[in-house]
């Protein structure tokens, strides 16, 4: 069963339109939603959660339409919306007690273990936590009620590299269960590159592509040459960068002539070059 299906999801604002978005997240996989600031990542997650009214399309979460599903189905979804939402005056212990009264599946033991693992002071108020600590508490809350689907909006932003690595491991561990899936949005592409099976590029409200990470790396490559050689290149170019020292172009491996010198492309380079090309058009 797919954990998440978006079909023609659309939202119009005065100066911004999101979609139509089509995206499928199979069970047991992690999808990274990559986009620059303002691309529509947070709006997409809020539309999925019905926190913002959509103008069109459908959202199916764990086999149920998000609008008709009972409120109890939210037990199966763990959400992190940046560091927002936790009452500022509460400490970690109080947050645990409040959530235990809200989630039927709340696991106080797991929550305490996550708080310990993240070195969260139990008696300190949430507002007195550092930005990183706040994110960690939000992640602990999202995980402590045994969700099947995690929706993480900029969950790793503000964390130092060591903690980011810890969180990445935690999420990888979570997704090891084939019934567990994650949709994570970020503009820190390196995090998602480590974590995700599938990558979706969102740019100005449109999905530029949505493919398996390994397939993207196999399909695309970086061609290096001079500006003159680039101008003569007889193959579709999906992004390019020209500097006084030379030129590079994002190309499909199968479209290049045999023997062409190609370098592997990272997801970050792929994203940056594609977005720049879109902007240039």
């Amino acid at each position: 069963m797919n954990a998440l299906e978006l079909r023609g999801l659309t939202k119009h604002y005065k100066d911004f339109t999101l979609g139509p978005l089509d995206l499928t997240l199979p069970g047991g996989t992690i999808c990274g939603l990559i986009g620059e600031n303002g691309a529509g990542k947070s709006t997409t997650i809020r539309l999925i959660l019905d926190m913002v009214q959509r103008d069109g399309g459908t959202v199916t979460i764990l086999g149920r339409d998000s609008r008709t599903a009972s409120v109890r189905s939210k037990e199966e979804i763990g959400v992190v919306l940046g560091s927002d939402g936790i009452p500022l005056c509460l400490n970690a212990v109080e947050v645990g007690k409040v959530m235990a009264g809200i989630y039927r599946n709340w696991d106080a033991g797991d929550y305490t273990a996550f708080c310990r693992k993240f070195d969260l002071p139990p008696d300190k108020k949430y507002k007195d936590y550092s930005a990183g600590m706040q994110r960690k508490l939000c992640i602990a809350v999202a995980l402590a009620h045994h969700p099947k689907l995690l929706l993480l909006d900029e969950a790793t932003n503000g964390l130092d590299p060591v903690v980011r690595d810890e969180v990445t491991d935690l999420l990888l561990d979570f997704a090891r269960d084939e019934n567990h899936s994650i949709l994570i949005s970020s503009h820190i592409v390196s995090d998602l590159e480590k974590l995700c099976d599938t990558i979706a590029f969102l740019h100005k409200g449109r999905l530029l592509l949505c493919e398996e990470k390994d397939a993207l790396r196999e399909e695309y490559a970086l061609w290096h040459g001079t500006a003159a050689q680039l101008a003569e290149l007889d193959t579709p170019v999906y992004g390019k960068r020209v500097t006084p020292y030379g030129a590079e172009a994002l190309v499909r491996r199968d479209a290049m002539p045999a023997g062409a010198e190609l370098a592997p492309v990272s997801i970050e380079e792929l994203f940056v070059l594609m977005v720049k090309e879109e902007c240039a058009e």
Partner: protein
Amino acid sequence: MKGLLLKDAYQIWHYAKGVIVAAVVMMGAGVVTIMNGANFFIVYAGFLMGMMPMTLLAYDQASKFSEYSGVLPVTKEQLVGSKYIIGLCGLVLAELFAAAALGVASLHWTAVDHALVVSTLVQVGMTTLLNSAVLLPLNYRFGYEKAKYAFYLMVGLVAALMGFGVSANEDGLARNFLPQGVPPLALLGIVLIVLGLYSLSWRLSVAWYGKAEQ
């Protein structure tokens, strides 16, 4: 629902216990000032207690809990209902404080007769519940920042009522929000109307829930 009420209880403890202390102090002042029949301080303490749900909602909006609650397995009826339950708890507390203050006052002042005690308790209930009944739907519809102007307007109206009370009395003293000598049946009618308005307000708040965030 249990978790939502617990969250609000924690928030009252951390942020709003000063309001409860202020209400108790006002009730104490009311014990003295009611000697000539003026119950303003006791009734105003009820008004303070009635601000509790609006205060909690403002904190929810500041911490973005209002938005985050959309991801929790709770209905909007529960989210809104928890604030109205807090309002009712405020009412019970205000009535208990008022009853204690009036009990002490009746031992000392002859002006504090049975009719004034009943009338004051009704007025405490009115101000406590009407405060939430008016302000909570506006909060859900427009958000705290805009709804607070309605709050200022309400404070102005209370002041105007007091002015009316002063001018209506021969000795120029503020006594009651309600005219003196209201029959018990009419007081009962007032109580029922206020409770009806409170439940109507709850329905309106449920209908308007989330509009401020859209």
